[in-house]
C-alpha cells in the first residue's frame, strides 16, 4: 500500500519563529480582524492598504516563511480578479471615463477593480500567513477554545484527516483503470467514471462505519474532549497590538 505524496495543507507551519510559537487563538483573532478591517476600508484610502501590506510583510519577515511560497499561493486569487476585471470596468458608468486605446473604461469601474484586487490580496495574504505559521490541528483547537460550534470543528478535523486518504483512494482507482487501457476517448468509457464515483462513495461510507466503530471501541460516547492548554503572554499581546491596533489607528486617523 504505497503512500502517494501530496502537498502539505499547512506547509511551513512547522518552522520555529516567534510568530509560529504564538498562541493560535491570538493568530486566528489577529488575522481575522485584519481581514475584516481591510474589507471595510473605503477603497480610496490608499495609505491604509499600504499599511496593511507592510504589516503583513513584517509578519512574513519575522516568520521566515519564504515570500516565494506566499506569492505562489496567492496565484489562486488571480482568476477571480481577472473575472472582475473583464466585466466591471465596462458595465459601470459614472465618475468620468478614460480611453484605453480602443476601449472606454469608467472611473467607477476602475475603482471597483482596484477595490477587489487590493482587498482580496491583503485578505488572502493574511490567510496564507495564518496557515503557514499555524499547524492546522492547532487552528482547530483555537476555534474550539473560541467556542466555534463543535459540529464545524469536528467536520473540519475529519476533513483534514481524511482528504488525503480519499485522494489516495481515487488515485489508486485511476491507476487501476488506466493500467487496463482506459483512454477516455469512447462514450462507453464515460460510464466508468460513474462507477468510480459510486465506488468512491461506497468506500467512504464503509470507512465512515469502520472509523465510528474504532471511536466506539475507545469509549466514545458522542462527546469530544480536548486536552490542549494555551496561555496568552507578552508575545501574544504584542502581536495582537501590531496586527489589530495599528490598522485601527490607521483607519481612525483618516
Amino acid at each position, binding site marked *: 500500500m504505497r503512500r502517494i505524496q501530496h502537498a502539505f495543507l499547512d506547509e511551513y507551519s512547522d518552522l520555529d519563529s516567534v510568530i509560529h510559537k504564538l498562541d493560535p487563538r491570538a493568530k486566528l483573532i489577529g488575522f481575522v480582524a485584519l481581514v475584516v478591517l481591510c474589507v471595510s476600508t473605503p477603497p480610496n484610502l490608499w495609505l491604509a492598504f499600504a499599511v496593511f501590506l507592510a504589516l503583513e510583510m513584517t509578519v512574513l519577515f519575522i516568520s521566515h516563511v519564504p515570500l516565494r511560497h506566499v506569492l505562489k499561493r496567492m496565484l489562486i486569487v488571480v482568476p477571480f480578479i481577472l473575472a472582475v476585471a473583464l466585466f466591471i470596468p465596462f458595465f459601470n458608468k459614472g465618475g468620468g471615463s478614460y480611453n484605453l486605446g480602443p476601449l472606454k473604461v469608467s472611473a467607477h469601474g476602475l475603482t471597483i477593480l482596484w477595490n477587489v484586487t487590493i482587498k482580496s490580496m491583503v485578505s488572502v495574504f493574511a490567510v496564507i500567513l495564518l496557515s503557514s505559521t499555524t499547524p492546522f*490541528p492547532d487552528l482547530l483547537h483555537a476555534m474550539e477554545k473560541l467556542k466555534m460550534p463543535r459540529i464545524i470543528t469536528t467536520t473540519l478535523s475529519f476533513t483534514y*484527516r481524511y482528504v488525503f486518504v480519499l485522494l489516495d483512494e481515487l488515485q489508486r482507482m485511476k491507476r487501476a483503470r488506466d493500467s487496463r487501457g482506459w483512454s477516455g476517448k469512447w462514450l462507453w468509457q464515460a460510464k466508468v467514471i460513474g462507477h468510480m464515483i459510486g465506488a468512491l462513495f461506497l468506500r467512504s461510507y464503509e470507512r465512515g462505519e469502520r472509523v465510528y466503530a*474504532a*471511536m466506539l471501541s475507545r*469509549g466514545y460516547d458522542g462527546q469530544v474532549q480536548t*486536552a490542549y492548554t494555551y496561555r496568552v503572554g507578552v508575545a501574544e499581546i504584542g502581536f495582537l497590538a501590531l496586527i489589530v491596533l495599528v490598522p485601527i489607528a490607521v483607519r481612525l486617523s483618516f
Partner: protein
Amino acid sequence: MHHRPAVEIRSLLYSYPDGTLALRGIDLVIEEGESVGIVGPNGAGKSTLLLHLNGILMGKGDVRVFGLPVEKKNLQEIRRRVGLVFQDPDDQLFCPTVFEDVAFGPMNMGLSKKEVSLAVSRALRDVGVAGKERRSAHHLSYGQKKRVSIATVLSMRPDLLVLDEPSSNLDPKSRRELSELLQNMPITKILVTHDLPFVFENCDRVVVLSAGRIAADGAAFDILSDEELLAEYGLELPYGFYPVQRQRSKNHDREM
C-alpha cells in the same frame, strides 16, 4: 473470588443485516495471560468475532469479558479493558494529530489533562514512536501508523489486547519489531492474522476458524505442524518454515 477467564463465549451466532451468517455457534474460553492466535481463510468470520469482544456487534449467545456480560450497561467498562485495534490504521487514527489519537481513549475515560498527557507519552514510548505527538497520521510511515494504532489502546491500559491483522503490510524489520513489542507486553492477547510464522512466534495457542465455526483449537506447535489440518482449512506455512526446527531453537533459547 471464583476464577474468571478473560473471555468466555458460549454458542455465539451472528448474521449481518444482509443475511450473511458470519458466526455459526462459537464456543471459546481464553484464560488471563494467554496469547491466542486466531487464523482461518478469508471470510471465516475472524473480524466479526473480534467485534463481539467489546460489543460493537452483539449476536445471539453469551459473551463475557473478565466475567462481565457484554451488554449495554457494561460497555463502558468493557471498552476500557479491551483494547481493540482495527486492521487499517487509517480507520484507527482519525484525529488531526498523533497526540489526540492516543489521548482519545484516556479522555473518554475521564482522566485529567495531566494523566492523559502522561498516558500518551508512556504509550508512545512503549511502541517506540516517542516525539511524534504533533505529527498528523497522514505524515507517518505505514509501520509507524501501525505502532501508533497500538498506542491508541495501550494508553487506556487495557487488560486484553485484541489485534486484527497486526503484521499485514509491514516490512520485515517493522514486523520483527512488532513481534518484540508484543512479547514484552505481559497482558492477555488475541491476534487475528494470516501470518502463521507470526502466530508461531507470539502465541501459545491457536484457534482455527472456518465458515463461522471453530475448526480446531490447540497448542500453537500442534496445530501449525499438522500439515493435513492446515491444508484442509486453506492455511499454508511459508516455504522453508518448519515449526519443528523453530520449536527446537525456541527451547534452546529458553535453556540458555
